């Protein structure tokens, strides 16, 4: 917390002193794009290459400067009062800033990401949280949180939600965990999560189920990472058999994203392994398929050409080429073709045994 406050105050002080001394103030932040990341194979995540963009205070940048400082002031206020604002809320707060207000949330999100990158802290530490929740958890896990009013510890037993589930909060830094589970199963769709939860699959396999609900939010990534580190859990990932599942969901969970590379180090799960649905599963389990859409094909080509993670793993290149050759994709739910419980009774137990069918 104090790191963020220090950064804000020091940056503001620097600008203030520059202005007082009649110097042109500058702001410097890393470039946020895939061009500026490389895959750190040793630690297993996307790291910044070190391209920086420098903004000097001139007539052309005066608006961005004003908005950045405004957001920094808001952040300082949030942190000092131990409050939070969603990205959307922060956008609405800016409507009080007259001409310096943001016209679209995209703009305020981008300024936030810049500040985050500039300070090397994560957004949550600045008091800004994601608009959507971080995912659902069920299984052999006790989460130790604090009562927002009393500050006393609360023990949350994730086996006690019945057909419901525990919701990952936006800030997971202060959570503690107790578990005897053997692994974490991160699932792409809520539908599949519900099915496994209904059949208490977590009990059968002695695991923790996490629903990512599409591309995992930062909170979700951080939660899985922290849980896997703190409680020494393996992480297995179960997504649709399509380029979106592989490249957007799995890759982001495992090594992070290009856009927020400055925080990847803590917001990725390098030890995660891809369990299914692999391109080979489509044949092995005779799954019903849909043809690849244009956007799927583009995604595959893009991944092969530009994604440093894919470029580091031959097995992934083969998988993508294989899928491209098939021209087909299969959803998790396609397993229902063999019976609604097939995934619980056959697919998952078999896949857990056959590690050789997994991908890195």
């Amino acid at each position, binding site marked *: 917390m104090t790191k963020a406050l220090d950064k804000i105050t020091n940056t503001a002080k620097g600008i203030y002193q520059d202005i007082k001394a009649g110097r042109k103030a500058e702001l410097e932040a890393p470039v946020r794009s895939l061009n500026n990341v490389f895959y750190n194979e040793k630690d297993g995540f996307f790291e910044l290459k070190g391209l920086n963009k420098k903004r000097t205070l001139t007539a052309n940048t005066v608006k961005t400067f004003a908005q950045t*400082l405004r957001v920094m002031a808001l952040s300082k206020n949030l942190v000092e009062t131990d409050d939070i604002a969603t990205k959307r809320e922060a956008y609405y707060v800016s409507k009080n800033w007259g001409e310096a207000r943001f016209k679209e949330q995209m703009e305020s999100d981008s300024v936030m990401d810049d500040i985050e990158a500039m300070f090397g802290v994560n957004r949550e530490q600045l008091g800004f949280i994601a608009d959507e929740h971080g995912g659902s958890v069920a299984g052999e896990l006790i989460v130790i949180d604090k009562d927002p009013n009393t500050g006393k510890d609360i023990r949350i037993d994730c086996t006690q939600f019945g057909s419901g589930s525990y919701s990952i909060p936006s800030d997971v830094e202060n959570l503690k965990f107790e578990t005897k589970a053997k692994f974490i199963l991160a699932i792409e769709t809520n539908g599949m999560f519900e099915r496994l939860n209904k059949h208490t699959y977590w009990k059968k396999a002695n695991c923790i189920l996490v629903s990512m609900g599409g591309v995992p939010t930062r909170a979700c990534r951080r939660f899985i990472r922290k849980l896997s580190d703190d409680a020494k859990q393996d992480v297995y990932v179960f997504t649709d058999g399509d380029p979106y599942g592989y490249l957007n969901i799995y890759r982001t969970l495992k090594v992070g994203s290009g856009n927020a590379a400055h925080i990847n180090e803590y917001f990725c799960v390098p030890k995660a392994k891809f369990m299914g649905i692999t391109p080979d599963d489509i044949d092995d389990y005779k799954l019903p398929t849909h043809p690849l859409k244009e956007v799927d094909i583009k995604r595959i080509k893009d991944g092969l050409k530009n994604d440093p993670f894919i470029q580091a793993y031959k097995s992934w290149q083969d998988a993508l080429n294989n899928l491209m050759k098939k021209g087909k994709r299969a959803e998790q739910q396609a397993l229902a073709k063999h019976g609604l419980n097939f995934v619980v009774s056959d697919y998952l137990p078999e896949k857990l045994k056959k590690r050789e069918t997994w991908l890195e």
Partner: protein
Amino acid sequence: MEDNQTLDSFSEKTEKSDKPEKKTKSSDAKAHELAKSQREISIAEFFEKNRHLLGFDNKRKALLTTIKEAVDNSLDACEEADVLPEISVEITEMGTDRYKVVIEDNGPGIIKSQIPKIFAKLLYGSKFHKLKMQRGQQGIGISAAVMYGQLTTGKPAKILSKIHPDEPAHYYELKINTQKNDPEIIAESTKEWHKENGTRIELELEASYMKGNQSVDEYIKETAIINPHVTLIYQPPKGDQIMLVRVTDKKPKLASEIKPHPYGVELGMLIKMMQVTTAKTIKQFLMQDFSRIGDKTAEEILENSSILSNTKLKDINRDLAEKLIDGIRKTKIMMPPTDCIVPIGAELLEKGLKKEVNAEFYTSVSRSPDVYRGNPFLIEASLAYGGDIPKEGSLNLMRFANRVPLLYQQGACAVTEGIMQTNWKQYGLQQSGSNMPQGPVVLVVHIASVWVPFTSEAKEAIAHYPEIIKEIKLAVQEIGRNLSKYLNKKRKVGDELKKRSYIEIYIPHIADALKEILKYSDSDKLDVEKKLEKLLEKTRGKIEDMKFDPTKNEDYDEDLAKIGKDNYYSDEDSDKEDEDD
């Protein structure tokens, strides 16, 4: 040249009568029968049937042409007599489509014996054989107006003219005998007239009066704009009298007359000139009746024509004349003198435009003289941009030839062609293909020449001589470059102003946010703002104020600008009116 064309087309008509005789030689009876129906027609009869050639194609235009011809003559007469012109024009409605017009000047007047011929004989005048920069050229205009009035109302023209304060004024009522092309005197007397000298003409004619682009009002206004030394008193049929007082007492330099240049002379003209010259030999003729032919050049021409220099003129037949034309073409002759052209001048032209249009930017150019077919000419142009000019629509063009406004046939005019052949996009105006450019622009183009080549006797459009179009293009290109310089500067200043307003808007936010984070005092905050302003504006330097200031143009004359503007009818209606006619 235009006069030849006219005569050619006229003589062609009479010549055609010979053809059937030749073809039907075998049947004499038929030929004789046909011959009976053949007769000579006079030029007056010809124009009676082809009144559109003189600008009398419809009632609205007839009114304009009548007034224009009379005013042109008055202005020419005043300038030739070195008098500051004061001309009054009065239009009175006499009934449905019936008007009386009275034009009165303070010119030198016309001697008694010449009055009937000047006003009631076509192609009679002092100007036809002259090469001199003046308004009238052919000696057709005013007598054509008299003829038109007579044809449509049966009334004679009433002329009053006085040449000296001590002499009485002469009064005539005149008609034209169209078969003979001769004046018919209806009444004649002397009268007392309060004027010291001058001429007054009164005509009644079938006409229609409308406002708008091609109206008498517009003509009067444009005449005042282009002739700053003229006072015009105009009484339209409806509304108040309009006084357009001269803005300068400086008369334009009197244009000098020049002899024809050999390069501009064609066979018919050459033969005509040989008939009227006082020279005896061919060499004398060349040296005496043409410009730029001295002893040496004359010898050279005659050598190139294989004609002996002492050949008597009466011995020059058609074949030899043709050889002479050929010889002229083969000889390098110096271009004609160009000091016979009196330009209005870029400055005065621009001043005139400023009276009419309140714009944010003006630019003018006066080219140096050039020559087409042996005739010197000169192009001047002036442009107004932005300000009060409507942003929508095409460039608004005002054409002038020898200080006369041209209101009709814009599409057929060399000026229009020159403008459309110019790429205006590079100067910052919109233009689709080779059309008129779009934008808030008024463009004035003036051609001055000893002989303006019009496409017809109605003198509405300038013929497409390549030399003329080229000069027009060069003039508008220069103007276009000036415009584009201005527009670029304006854009830069606009960008700069935007940036500066940016600075003003966002500086307080920076100071506010810093204050919020660092919790410094209000006075410190003011200091930060001041320092920021200094810091950000330091590098930017001073900028010119380019905002349009409607009061800056001191020449602008709102009352003048209004003349002719309030349309009673839309253009569509007036077009229809033209068709109905």
